[in-house]
């Protein structure tokens, strides 16, 4: 029961796009995941910092990049929120909560992805 709830809140990344792109090559898949694990923390930090400081330009840039990366590694559940922030962060009253929620899901997915490499 607890596990099901956990899966609903933190869905397992869907790697089907990457598998298509890498033509099922597991080594290549691992290489891409490793790059994501290396790059994502920097983008996540930039997103959090710019949300905190109200730097909407940096927020736009970081979310733009995150959309692509999250799509590639199949962390799709947060993409609608990232897109909303990308297009209208300045009008959001709950910006910080949304950013925290995204960070939580991405962190959880990264933990799972680390087990694959």
């Amino acid at each position, binding site marked *: 029961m607890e596990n099901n709830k956990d899966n609903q809140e933190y869905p397992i990344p869907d790697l089907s796009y990457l598998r298509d792109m890498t033509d099922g090559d597991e080594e290549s898949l691992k290489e891409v995941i490793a*790059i994501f694990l290396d790059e994502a923390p920097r983008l996540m930090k930039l997103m959090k910092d710019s949300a905190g400081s109200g730097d909407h330009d940096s927020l736009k840039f970081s979310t733009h990049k995150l959309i692509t990366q999250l799509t590639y590694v199949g962390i799709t559940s947060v993409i609608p929120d990232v897109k909303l922030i990308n297009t209208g962060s300045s009008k959001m009253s709950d910006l910080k909560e949304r950013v925290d929620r995204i960070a939580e899901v991405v962190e959880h997915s990264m933990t799972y992805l680390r087990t694959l490499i």
Partner: protein
Amino acid sequence: MEKILIIDDDKLVRKVFKMTLLKEGYDILEAEDGPTGLQLIRSEHPDLTLTDYQMPGMNGIEVLAEIRKTKTNMPVIILTAFGDVVLTIKAIQLGAFDFLEKPVNPELLKTTIKSALESVNRSNKLTGIIKKDIPVDTALEHSILVGKTAKMKEIFKSIGLISMNRVNVLIQGETGTGKELIARLIHYSGITRSEPLVVVNCSALTETLLESELFGHVKGAFTDSIRDKKGKFELAGEGTIFLDEISEISHNTQVKLLRVIQELEFEKVGGESPIPMKARIIAATNKSLEKLIQEGKFREDLYYRLKVFTIDMPPLRERKDDINDLVIHFLYKLNKRFNRNVTKIGDGVIEMLQQHNWSGNVRELENTILQAMIVAKNDVLEKENISLINRFEGDQEKQGNKEMIVSLAEVEKAHIKRVLDLVNWNKVEASQILDISRPTLNAKIEKYNLIQ
């Protein structure tokens, strides 16, 4: 081995594309920003560039603009996380081969790259057909003189004779065969060249207006005539008056025109003093005047006065050997007018055009070339750029093949599929061309079960 340059500040994107494209046998170059990419283009001469749009410092459109300054022919594909209509249009205007949304479908990426490289290869094999140093005046003459077929050569010979004599000429031919061009050539190539050429479209004016246009009027001749006005015959002086669609003039105007030709003078509407008529008359018709005479709609005596010399313009379907030269001419003319650089003709294009019926004649051909030029993705006019389907169906219908007639839905389905294929299923671009919203396009794709 073809070399592809990937410009993207996102290492993960570069990696994914690199892996995919290495498997396809391409050599891959990578750059993490625009300036580095441009440097690699200068030193490594890649065959194609994939560039992200959103990059710090220099965006993909700026990269594309820089590339186009020196590499006019290298395909550039721009990638973005969001489909953006304005960006897409700008990218295509600047000469991007395509504009793809990330994450790019692997198959779409491969086919787009393959198609871009193939188009360059075809372009490289073909020799440029447009001589860029033709001066404008010469080009104008070329526009009239296009035609190597026997029928056209005979017409050109006739023009040589007519242009040195001030005889009246009747030009007959279907719509779009170039009757006005022939009239211009007669005028400008002979003794009238330094005199005015005045063009009157007889079908565009009511009887009263036409008479006022042709002969002029004096002040007070009718309600709105507040001052004297010269008519076209007077304005033509010793030059040429070209009466287009002569079959459309009323019986009354026919009588007055006949009198002008017989007596070589006319009076303004409401006027009494005769004015000498010195201009040569060239009349044109897309209807059979002989048939109209039989039906009592056109005066026989006027007909014989107009057709001192007759030129019959052949329909394009009877001079298909001229299509190659006409296409070259239109490319030259339209490139100049629309600031394009489509200077080559792809394999099979001329043959494809020669198979068409061309019910709209040369004018239809020109419009077809213009449409094709607009969608051409590089300097080559390709078969897939040319839209003939609907017209072909129209031709079939005219020929009585009723079994070929399909429902409106089938026509719509075929057209949407063709546009989607043309733009490699880029829905933003397709919806632009089709002039419908993207949700509407999606709904139609679903309705017609269209598959890439």
